[in-house]
């Protein structure tokens, strides 16, 4: 039996936003049709453009930082400029790229499609959140550049109060960005609750949607803390109330509590979507339902909740009480359980599957590889006595890059390659994508494995210059950054090249059972020509019909032949 039935013949009434049955890219035309669009797919693409630019900018600063560290002493810039570079790298990557990357770009595009909805619950608010994001980008970048901010992306007081007046405007920028993610989160929550197509029960919801749901919960609950921080900073600055500044009787450690009370949950805003993509990739390319679906879904919710309780592990040597230190260490270890469950379930899913070595699957396996390293090195940092030695060294830098980049960015790239044909209607060149992958994978490890070693040997973070014994490790790391950058450029080229040279993609090029592959490629403006009725889970390969699983490449080939004959 077919999973999709079409109970209502015909389609949607035209409503001035273009023909709902037309390809969303061609339904309407012109600048206004993009700038004022309320179509979640176009908004997703606009976010994708913005976060890609942010990734490029943040990446350039990363390369400059690595280049400066290639030799001891001055290599390209002076110390103050170096401090600004790593601040810009961190702030741009965290706030402008990685937090919005998966939810706002891929989530916006696929969440409604994957639950058989026509759009998100509040399409206009969705557009509003995009423009708020743009405002946030402007505020954050202008305050960092004009204020010559060199505080690191954590803006710790009192240094941030001492060197520039930008800490308030930066927090404002981060808050405005956060407000954008609150709106997106709220939109997703309501959409998931109210707009699932008939037959998509909570236990048939794709794991990507579960991940977006968990992420949205964190966004809605954690971001308001930024507003409180902002209010306190303003109170201190304008009314002289001592809160964070010791000169006024304030407590700088309090700022760290506030900062991490938002920024630690934000870590889960970054990684849970990466895990969500990975569940989709593993299932599709193993041709098999995710092992322990329920456990994987609940582990996302578990991470969202635990994420609120562990912020203090950033403060183990900061002057927190022994009791608080003990509690935060214990809570931090709990995070290992849902993370472990995910990794175990992904691996078990591959058992007795039919593994397709496609480029997105390479990224999915790389995710398991790199995230396992990121997660296991977290054990060192949760263990108090070992953390004392390792914290604030390159070990921490390597650890969070393995989680953030080895996890989220790798999943983001895998997800982009996976969904690119659906989004654009064009298939990329798999060979180039795989070459790009190997550069990224080898480059990434070359950058960060030496950082683990120099960190455990005692190299502190955020150093413009270093002791001679660390030079070989810095050299290797910098060389790795060039390999990684090459891989990323090859991947970007592969994706962009597909737009004008790529083969026309069929409906389901990877042969997935997922719901998003049941609709046109690229989807029509209304996502589906009529409301789909779902009768099986998104990973039920044994229940899906051969037509549903057919890649459609045969027809594409046949079509190409017919055209040639014409």
């Amino acid at each position: 039996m077919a999973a999709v039935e079409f109970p209502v013949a015909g389609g949607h009434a035209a409503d001035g936003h273009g023909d709902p049955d037309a390809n969303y890219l061609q339904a309407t035309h012109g600048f206004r049709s993009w700038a004022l669009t309320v179509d979640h797919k176009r908004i997703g693409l606009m976010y994708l453009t913005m976060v890609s630019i942010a990734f490029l900018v943040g990446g350039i600063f990363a390369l400059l930082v690595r280049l400066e560290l290639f030799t001891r002493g001055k290599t390209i810039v002076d110390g103050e400029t170096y401090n600004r570079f790593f601040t810009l790298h961190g702030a741009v990557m965290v706030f402008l790229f990685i937090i919005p990357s998966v939810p706002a770009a891929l989530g916006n595009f696929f969440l409604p499609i994957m639950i058989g909805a026509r759009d998100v619950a509040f399409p206009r608010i969705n557009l509003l959140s995009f423009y708020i994001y743009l405002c946030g980008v402007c505020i954050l970048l202008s305050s960092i550049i004009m204020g010559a901010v060199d505080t690191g992306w954590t803006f710790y007081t009192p240094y941030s109060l001492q060197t520039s007046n930008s800490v308030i405007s930066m927090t404002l920028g981060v808050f405005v960005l956060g407000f954008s993610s609150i709106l997106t989160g709220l939109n997703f929550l309501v959409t998931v609750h109210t707009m699932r197509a008939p037959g998509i029960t909570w236990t048939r919801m794709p794991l990507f949607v579960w991940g977006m749901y968990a992420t949205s919960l964190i966004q809605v609950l954690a971001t308001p803390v930024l507003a409180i921080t902002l209010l306190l900073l303003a109170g201190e600055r304008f009314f002289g109330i001592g809160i964070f500044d010791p000169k006024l009787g304030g407590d700088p450690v309090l700022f760290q509590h506030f900062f991490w009370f938002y920024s630690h949950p934000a870590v889960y805003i970054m990684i849970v979507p990466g895990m969500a993509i990975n569940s989709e990739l593993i299932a599709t390319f193993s041709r098999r339902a995710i092992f322990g679906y329920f456990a994987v879904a609940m582990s996302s919710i578990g991470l969202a909740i635990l994420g609120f309780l562990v912020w203090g592990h950033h403060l183990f040597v900061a002057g927190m009480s022994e009791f608080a230190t003990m509690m935060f260490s214990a809570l931090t270890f709990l995070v290992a359980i849902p993370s472990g469950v995910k990794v175990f379930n992904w691996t078990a899913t591959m058992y007795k599957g039919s593994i397709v070595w496609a480029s997105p699957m390479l990224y999915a396996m790389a995710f398991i590889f790199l995230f396992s390293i990121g997660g296991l090195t977290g054990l060192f940092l949760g263990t108090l006595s070992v953390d004392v030695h390792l914290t604030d060294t390159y070990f921490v830098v390597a650890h969070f890059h393995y989680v953030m980049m080895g996890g989220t960015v790798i999943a983001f790239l895998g997800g982009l390659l996976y969904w690119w044909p659906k989004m654009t209607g064009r298939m990329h060149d798999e060979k180039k994508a795989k070459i790009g992958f190997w550069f990224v994978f080898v480059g990434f490890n070359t950058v960060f494995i030496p950082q683990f070693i120099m960190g455990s040997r005692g190299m502190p973070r955020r150093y413009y210059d270093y002791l001679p014994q660390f030079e070989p490790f810095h050299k290797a790391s910098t060389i790795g950054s060039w390999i990684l950058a090459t891989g990323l450029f090859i991947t970007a080229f592969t994706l962009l090249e597909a737009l004008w040279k790529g083969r026309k993609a069929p409906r389901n090029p990877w042969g997935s059972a997922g719901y998003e592959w049941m609709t046109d490629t690229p989807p029509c403006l209304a996502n589906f020509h009529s409301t789909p009725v779902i009768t099986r889970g998104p990973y039920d390969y044994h229940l899906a019909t051969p037509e549903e699983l057919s890649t459609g490449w045969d027809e594409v080939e046949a079509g190409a032949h017919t055209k040639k004959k014409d």
Partner: protein
Amino acid sequence: MTEPNAPATFQLPEQMSTVAGDVDWLYYFIYWLSVVLFVGIIGAMLYFAWKYRERPGHKAEPTGHNLPLEIGWTVAPIFVLVFLFHKGFQGYMDMTVPPANAMEIKVNAKQWGWEFVYPNGGSDNELHVPVHKAVKLVISSTDVLHSFFVPALRVKRDVVPGMYTSQWFEATHVGQDDIVCAEYCGGRSKDSSGNELPFAQMTGHWSMHSMLHVETPEDFTKYLVGIGDPCASYTVKGQTCPASVLVAQGRKIYEKKACIGCHTTDGSRLVGPSWKGIWSKTESTDHGSVTVDEAYVRESILTPQAKIVTGFPPTMPSFSGQISDQEIDEVIAYIKSLKD
């Protein structure tokens, strides 16, 4: 347990404190645990990826359920995690609670240097400690956050302005190691008019480096006597300290208290005015012109923002509470000596 005083391994530096052995044991325990888990997971993943690769005639089996397996890998890690938590917390308490008889050394951190004040009142910008003796550091900052980190001791403690933090250790053998700052505290690589300084004069988080010297008790006692204030011995006897001793002592303070970071003695310009020839000069300030005399120097050390010399930023921290009257006299003597 690893041997105490073990030399550096590929991953960890040399051990020089009583807690280092336990820390390293736990580090390597987690390391090998991680290696086993990682090889197991990735090995299985690669094996499955190869064995069940897509090929003609091969079909995926529908996913089944295995509740005992799922409960197993959710519950089993808890035992390991509880063990790690317990060992980690135990080790943390060992390095946090000092023995009652520990010798106290005061540590002042500032942008960008360390000052260590010993029980006899003498101070230095490097840390000397006797071997096999518990030492408790009482750490404070005059400006921003810093972090006291000695890799070989396996200890690290943030330095927080407005509060005291403390850290104790007992060195296990005679030797040396680096003291570094592990919490970002900014940097300066341009002079007050915005020109880039030569690399050697750039200072910042990265240059906040000092040395730990672990010495025999005899050497340490000699060291303590040496850093005591030579003028004190004159004062005790009711004599006046000779000018040459005062000047020499003032120069030491100039280096130890990091005045050297902002004020040169050769007339060149850094963040603050050079001390060369500044004595008895008339300077214009934001509160009218002043003559650089004893009163103005004293005021500038204790309340630096009172009168700012025109053309310089108001960035100097107050040394109130960190410098004695005797030391101010010595600094004044040194500035006087730079008159010509």
